[in-house]
């Protein structure tokens, strides 16, 4: 029982259901639904806490106090906000596509909650150990893009449609470096299953073997989650509020919940794929200790997410896309090629895998910095030349 508490609980429920006269096959199907419901509920309840954490840390970063009226340290502020949202009127704009309008918010939440289905929380504690977990992460992300598009289109509002267009452009673009960066842990682990990827990090966390890939994944998933500096989804000064402008009440609340949960989800995914997931001392004796390690590591990464969000200003849309296509994509392709070749070479020549991969990543990082410096210099020179030309033209005219 101490070795596999969840499996033990599942067995207990199964025995109970069968004793009620249910066929074992049907009992298993019902159990799958129950487990999925339990996981989704737990994750969504966690969001209440996460919203409080994010607001509190953001406030501290900005030299404010943050929510501090409702409950101890303002802990129940989110619950008060949720009640307020539920009690508000749901407004449907005239000319809106009603069905699609109400389909978008649940899809947005689903695309985030669905990610938790393959996150290994502790040894033997995972929603579904499918052998294509990494691709599953990407395909669920695609559903999030669809939700944004639906919301923007069905609202019958030009700002919403504009917001949706640029958001979709950004999300689809940032999927490319994310997919390519995900190839690196897949190659290192020799499997696409998230459970297997965590197990293979017993010798060494993948963040040590592939620091650049970890950074690329982290940046591109920040963009997927729409966290600042990539929060083009709701640039108040440019497009009012983006794709969710027409939504009110809990329909808006769902987008809101999905967005906040996504921030923690990318932290959890980064931890599972690169920071050893639930691995830690003593995990094999007490599996539930893995849950603690996983939560602690995720909390640290989540803090970094909020920290970046509170520090960096929002980028312009052309900057966001240029950064992706001209910097992240080439770098991720180079990383995959370098990692693949080095990993095979190190195995063939008997070098230390960690040292070889770390060395290659160091060379790659150095080359990137040199290339960026040279590029910046050439941009500066071109600008100076253009300014001189304009100045000369002005004197000739004057």
């Amino acid at each position, binding site marked *: 029982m101490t070795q596999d508490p969840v499996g033990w609980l599942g067995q207990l429920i199964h025995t109970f259901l069968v004793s009620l006269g249910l066929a074992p*096959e049907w009992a298993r199907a019902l159990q799958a639904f129950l487990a999925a419901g339990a996981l989704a509920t737990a994750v969504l309840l966690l969001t209440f806490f996460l919203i409080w954490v994010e607001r509190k840390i953001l406030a501290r970063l900005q030299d404010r106090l943050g929510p501090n009226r409702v409950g101890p340290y303002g802990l129940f502020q989110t619950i008060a906000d949720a009640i307020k949202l539920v009690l508000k009127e749901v407004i449907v704009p005239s000319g809106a596509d009603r069905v699609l309008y109400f389909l978008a918010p649940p899809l947005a939440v689903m695309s985030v909650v669905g990610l938790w289905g393959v996150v290994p929380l502790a040894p033997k504690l995972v929603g579904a150990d499918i052998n294509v977990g990494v691709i599953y992460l990407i*395909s*669920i992300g695609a559903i999030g893009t669809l939700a944004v598009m639906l919301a923007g289109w069905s609202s019958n509002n030009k700002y919403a449609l504009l917001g949706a267009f640029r958001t979709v452009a950004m999300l689809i673009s940032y999927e490319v470096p994310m997919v390519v960066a995900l190839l690196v842990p897949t190659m290192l682990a020799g499997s696409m299953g998230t459970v297997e990827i965590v197990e293979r990090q017993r010798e060494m966390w993948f963040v040590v073997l592939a620091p650049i890939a970890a950074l690329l994944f982290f940046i591109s998933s920040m963009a997927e989650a729409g966290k600042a500096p990539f929060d083009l989804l709701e640039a108040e000064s440019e497009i009012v509020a983006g794709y969710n402008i027409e939504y009110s009440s809990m329909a808006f609340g769902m987008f809101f919940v999905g967005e906040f949960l996504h921030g923690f989800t990318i932290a959890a995914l980064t931890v599972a794929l690169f920071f050893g997931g639930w691995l830690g001392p003593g995990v094999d004796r007490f599996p539930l200790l893995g849950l603690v390690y996983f939560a602690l590591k995720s909390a640290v990464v989540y803090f970094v997410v909020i920290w970046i969000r509170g520090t960096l200003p929002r980028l312009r849309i052309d900057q966001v896309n240029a950064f992706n296509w001209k910097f992240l994509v080439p770098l991720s392709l180079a990383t995959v090629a370098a990692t693949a070749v080095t990993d095979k070479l190190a195995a063939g020549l008997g070098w230390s895998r960690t040292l070889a991969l770390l060395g290659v990543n160091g060379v790659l990082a150095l080359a990137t910095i040199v290339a960026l410096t040279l590029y910046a210099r050439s941009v500066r020179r071109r600008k100076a030349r253009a300014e001189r030309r304009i100045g000369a033209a002005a004197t000739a005219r004057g």
Partner: protein
Amino acid sequence: MTVLQIVFLGLGLATLVCAAMVVTSPKLVHAALWLIATLACVAGLFVLLEASFLAMVQVAVYIGAIAILIIFAAMLTRRVMAETGGQPNRNWWAAVFAAALLFVGLIGLLREVPAWSAAVPAALPLAPEPLLEDLGQSLVDVDRYVIPFEVASILLLAALVGAIVVARPSQRADEGEGT
């Protein structure tokens, strides 16, 4: 009836209904969304066949791609919100004929498969994990699919280069901006 059979029948029915809606829906965007629903049901069928890799790729590629398609539909057509009337035009009987021919042809091909007449479905020769590895191996195996794979790669590369060439601003416009 087992759980699997019920799920299969439900999914098959949903696929057919969604597919019918794709070709009859009066609004362009709705047709695109029904297409997404159809492809999602097909992904479900792949899952039932234990081809989880294909199912995931189906969702990742098609749903993302169709979101882009909707953007184009909304940008390139006028009055997308309005109903444009029924989709069928004068050639509907030719389409029905072609579809029927394809269906009969597929049935004819399927009858050649040995499992068609078998009462018990054939077991999978391999577990899911080696199946996936086999798929990867076959793409780089000289005796199997390496040529189609490479041809597809070159085609996609050409499309990428072409997109960059088309989108590239002309040299003069670049100077005019003074960047």
